């Protein structure tokens, strides 16, 4: 498709298309179903969500079309009271929102860093040749394959303050004096969420990095072996630089997931202010308070934050998502 300029403005008139034009036309034919699909399931809901954020839609008005256009009031609104006081309203003036933003960013940074680190370790081990490697590779995927609902419940039980095995073990080892209500206490709730998320998604990270590792030719390591370069230097000077593209892609996948995390937190630490993320807050606004306008404004802000982050990341990381040959 990059050569279309050479063929554009072709003098042939009427039905006879040249080869390039035919190719472009059939490409569009193949793409059409997917484009329609994306318009229906992605573009339209996104557009609706953004447009709701500029209305006062609530559970009562959202379906009968009686909601009113309110401009940016859901985001930020300046109100002057009768006594002359100025009050700011809207998502951007909401303390809960900023707590949620901080929670989300904190969660994303820590979880993705830990997952990258452990994922790299696991990938390096799985890249070695040993007996039963195929079995271990499959086994390591189990946490990733378990539905979040199940793993959240499972961990919730394990972290339980009265019956949980984790408290039991910690007590036996005399690491704590009394059981900790991991998921309920404000100071440990985030730790609990992080533990479960790292456990759950490290396999995914490991697999993506392993794919990158396997792209590095064995000759590279053999040449280093003959040169007598010590394994640590080989890792930092050869493996890691060559692995960088794979790690960057893996990190962005995980970061996107982490920034919009909802299910695990909603299930493991419901109602806890210390783990409330942007998605959870937006959900609460819409489902519990029926405020579709402000909830949509939150979703829209979340969308903007993620988009900005991705664009920056691609630019700063010089990430090549186009898949063009690097040679």
């Amino acid at each position, binding site marked *: 498709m990059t050569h279309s300029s050479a063929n554009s403005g072709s003098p042939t008139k009427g039905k006879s298309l040249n080869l390039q034009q035919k190719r472009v036309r059939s490409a569009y034919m193949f793409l059409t179903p997917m484009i329609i699909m994306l318009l229906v399931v992605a573009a339209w809901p996104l557009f609706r969500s953004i447009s709701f954020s500029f209305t006062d839609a609530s559970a009562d008005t959202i379906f009968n079309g009686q909601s009113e256009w309110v401009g940016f009031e859901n985001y930020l609104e300046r109100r002057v009271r009768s006594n002359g006081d100025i009050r700011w309203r809207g998502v951007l003036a909401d303390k809960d929102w900023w707590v949620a933003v901080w929670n989300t960013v904190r969660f994303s940074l820590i979880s993705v860093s830990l997952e990258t680190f452990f994922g790299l370790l696991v990938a390096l081990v799985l890249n070695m040749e040993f007996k039963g490697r195929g079995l271990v590779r499959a086994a390591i995927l189990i946490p990733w394959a378990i539905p979040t609902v199940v793993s959240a419940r499972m961990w919730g039980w394990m972290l339980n303050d009265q019956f949980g095995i984790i408290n039991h073990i910690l007590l036996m080892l005399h690491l704590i004096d009394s059981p900790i209500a991991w998921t309920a206490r404000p100071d440990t709730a985030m730790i609990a969420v992080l533990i479960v998320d790292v456990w759950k998604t490290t396999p995914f990270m490991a697999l993506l990095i392993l794919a990158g590792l396997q792209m590095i030719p064995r*000759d590279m390591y053999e*040449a280093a072996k*003959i040169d*007598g*370069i010590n394994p640590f*230097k080989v890792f930092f000077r050869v493996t890691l630089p060559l692995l960088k593209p794979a790690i960057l892609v893996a990190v962005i996948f995980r970061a996107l997931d982490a920034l919009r995390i909802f299910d695990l937190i909603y299930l493991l630490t419901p109602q806890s202010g210390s783990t409330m993320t942007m998605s959870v807050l937006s959900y609460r606004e819409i489902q519990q308070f029926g405020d579709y306008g402000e909830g949509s404004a939150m979703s829209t802000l979340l969308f903007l934050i993620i988009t900005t982050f991705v664009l920056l990341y691609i630019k700063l990381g010089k990430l090549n998502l186009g898949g063009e040959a690097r040679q």
Partner: protein
Amino acid sequence: MANITLKAVRKSFGSFEVIKGIDLEIRKGEFMVFVGPSGCGKSTLLRLISGLEEITSGDLMFDDARVNNVIPSERGIAMVFQSYVLYPHMKVYDNLAFGMKLGKRDKSEIDTRVRKAAEMLQIDHLLDRLPRQLSGGQRQRVAIGRAIVRDPRVFLFDEPLSNLDAALRVATRLEIAKPHHDMNDVTMIYVTHDQVEAMTLADRICVLRDGVVEQVGTPAELYEKPNSVFVAGFIGSPKMNFLTGTFADAVGCTTLGIRAEHIDIVDQADATWTGTVVHAEDLGSDHFLFVDIGADEPVVVRRSGKLDTGMLGQVVSLRPQAENLHRFGPDDKPLG
């Protein structure tokens, strides 16, 4: 700088034996080529000498010291791989210096050696480039440079030219021959499946087949006195003609071998064989005639000069030169 001796060397992967007992002496400063069809174990043998693979049984000696258990980096070897193995994120200079830099050598010494090697291979103008900005031939020269910089006792080449196209292959062959002339005390071992490469580069050739040595000798020895049907067929292009049955019986052997240039076209009265020219190939300087004399395959006859197209379809009379017949017995070994 090293004599390499292999004594009854064997290598198995699991229960599968790849190298089946090899005795071989590679002399100091010699250019030795391992050649053979794919799967004959030539690359494995090289990897055993490099230390990248462990020897299952037997002895590997460098200058009378057993090195079976010496790690690769302490054997004083340098290896050039088929896939070049340049680090894509490092400039050519750093690729050349990488092995030494980490060996904690003096910076100015590294610089002198890198530049000297670069000059020798005429890649000194490429030192600031990344590998992806180089052509295939240039990359292979950098790879050779990396080996030279290490100042090894033994150079190992693992099919270094097979990723290059035909023209570059010839040019790079010269590049490889050059360090051999310049550093004539360095032992070189070169693995290839291409018998032309073997013939042009080698001081001596070791023909391998199925994990054992078929024959070791100079290119001329292998060409003139092959000691098996396999070597006779493997060395030389076009392939030696092999005749069996009555053709072989006539000279008292099981298989009769005769090279294309050792068959003359003669008058009908002097003919040993007669047949029709079924195909011809013109190479310009000389040409090949494929003559069907009633054997399993047409006999190839090499003649100098341009092809006379009128030859096609003609019946010709052939006579093999009696002094250049290769007579092999039922065990595929030469007779008397």
